[in-house]
């Protein structure tokens, strides 16, 4: 069975065309790293797969069925815009709030909900830290709780929106390894969006690169090349491979790192050129 199938999909928001006539297929149990410049439509594509953003033309099928809101077989970890670090509620109560959270009524501690939450917490190795208030957890610990929440109800497809954001490299590696282990153990497809390719190298099965309304899906060596990326960025792109790492450069400027660093004023792309 295919996890996600896009057939000639075009998505526009307002006057902006986010995706233009994209066709691609992601198989069951695949680990896909999704990359692309800011605003390329990574989050929009995830929201379209969830049925929250309508396609303008074309069709999206998820796990063999047309997209629909509230699909229990799809786990979703949104990019955390709301700062959950301000809540004084325990991690366990936070995770369990998503179990049957769509139903009306008082959230009496239903044993089944807590069992399900504890199972998910066990999967991500967060049973202990879930007893602490959210306000007292670190960024890496919160990512694990969010991941546990996405795993409620045993989904067959996991959409993870920028789970590495604001984590230091050590915690990034932990999260990637954890997702990889889960994906192998419970056999689910994962769509994992990120700003940087290098932390994901060696872990992902294929890469999905978005840019300029287009998409390229394939093995890293076939997608992360000068011709393909030049087409996606709409300008000349150079790809440099060095010691098992890949640097995507435009005019001596390293693109992926630049997106992280330019707030600090300086990208050190020149060092690698």
């Amino acid at each position, binding site marked *: 069975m295919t996890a996600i199938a896009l057939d000639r999909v075009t998505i526009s928001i307002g006057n902006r065309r986010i995706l233009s006539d994209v066709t691609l297929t992601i198989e069951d149990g695949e680990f896909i790293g999704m990359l692309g410049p800011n605003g390329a439509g990574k989050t929009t594509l995830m929201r379209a797969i969830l049925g929250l953003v309508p396609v303008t033309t074309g069709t999206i099928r998820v796990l063999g069925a047309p997209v629909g809101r*509230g699909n229990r077989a799809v786990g979703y970890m*949104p990019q955390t815009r709301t700062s959950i670090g301000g809540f004084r509620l325990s991690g366990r109560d936070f995770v369990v709030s998503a179990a049957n959270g769509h139903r009306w009524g008082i959230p009496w501690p239903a044993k089944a909900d807590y069992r399900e939450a504890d199972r998910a917490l066990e999967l991500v190795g967060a049973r202990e830290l879930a007893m602490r208030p959210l306000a007292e957890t670190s960024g890496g610990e919160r990512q694990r709780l969010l991941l546990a929440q996405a795993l409620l109800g045993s989904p067959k497809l996991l959409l993870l929106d920028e789970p590495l954001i604001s984590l230091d490299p050590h915690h990034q590696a932990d999260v990637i390894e954890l997702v990889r282990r889960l994906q192998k153990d419970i056999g689910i497809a994962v769509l994992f969006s990120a700003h940087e390719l290098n932390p994901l190298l060696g872990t992902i099965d294929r890469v999905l690169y978005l840019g300029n309304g287009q998409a390229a899906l394939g093995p890293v060596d076939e997608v992360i090349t000068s011709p393909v990326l030049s087409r996606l960025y709409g300008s000349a792109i150079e790809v440099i491979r060095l010691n098992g790492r890949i640097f995507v450069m435009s005019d001596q400027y390293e693109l992926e790192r630049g997106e992280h660093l330019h707030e600090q004023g300086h990208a050190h792309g020149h060092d690698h050129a």
Partner: protein
Amino acid sequence: MSRAMPTGTTMLKYDFIINALAAAGIVAVVAGAVGYFLVLRGQTFAGHALSHVGFAGATGAVLIGLSPFWGLVALTLLAGLAMGFLGERVSGRDVAIGMVLSLSLGLGLLFLHFYTSFAIQATGLLFGNVFGVDRAVVYTLGFIGLTCLIVLAVITRPLLFVTLQPELAEAKSVSPRLLSVLFMAVVALAVAEAAQIVGVLLVFTLMVGPAAAAQRLSSRLGLGVLLAVLLGLGEAWLGITLAYYTDWPVSFWITALSAAVYFASAAKGSLAAAA
């Protein structure tokens, strides 16, 4: 009240004390439970502003010959529904909310200006007059309070979900707007009730104080709500008792207890974090 009686049981022989305790008890339970979610959602300022809108409602109602209580309830509810409907666009707009708050007080003042004989009651409206509550008001508070609690019980689960994880809740087909409207309606009714006890200016003390302290003291949801209710009940009843024995205003005692409990809980939290 003149000189205090030596034992606690004697104050219960007065009807107005019984009524005050009943009214304050009902309101403390409702305000504690509703306030817990208000604090969790970071909408305490919106709750504070709602009570001020109620002041304009109460004085306006008197001006046109209606009951100030129902004027307060009606306008607060209307403003709550509007805030809930505007939802995301309102929360965080502190300046806009603050402007509505002061405009409402200004309007209330204008209405009082046109209806001068009501001025004496204005203090009661602003700072509360729980000893003036009669049996009929107690029943009304009980009815409105029960309505609040029933609606809150029905929406609690999705409300919690949408508060903690708005994007995920939306992906699971939970409507943030519907919940926001229903919740703000409940908040408005709870605020209107609290204003009967401590007055529109001091609603914060019952709606937010016990709930915020409860969240400091427990990280568990059910226990937190229960604590908020019990703290509110304790503060309200102890406040009335202290007022009876000291002859100082009830609202003063409730605000003092509420602040003391909140700051004690905050200090306990900081100590625990430092240890």
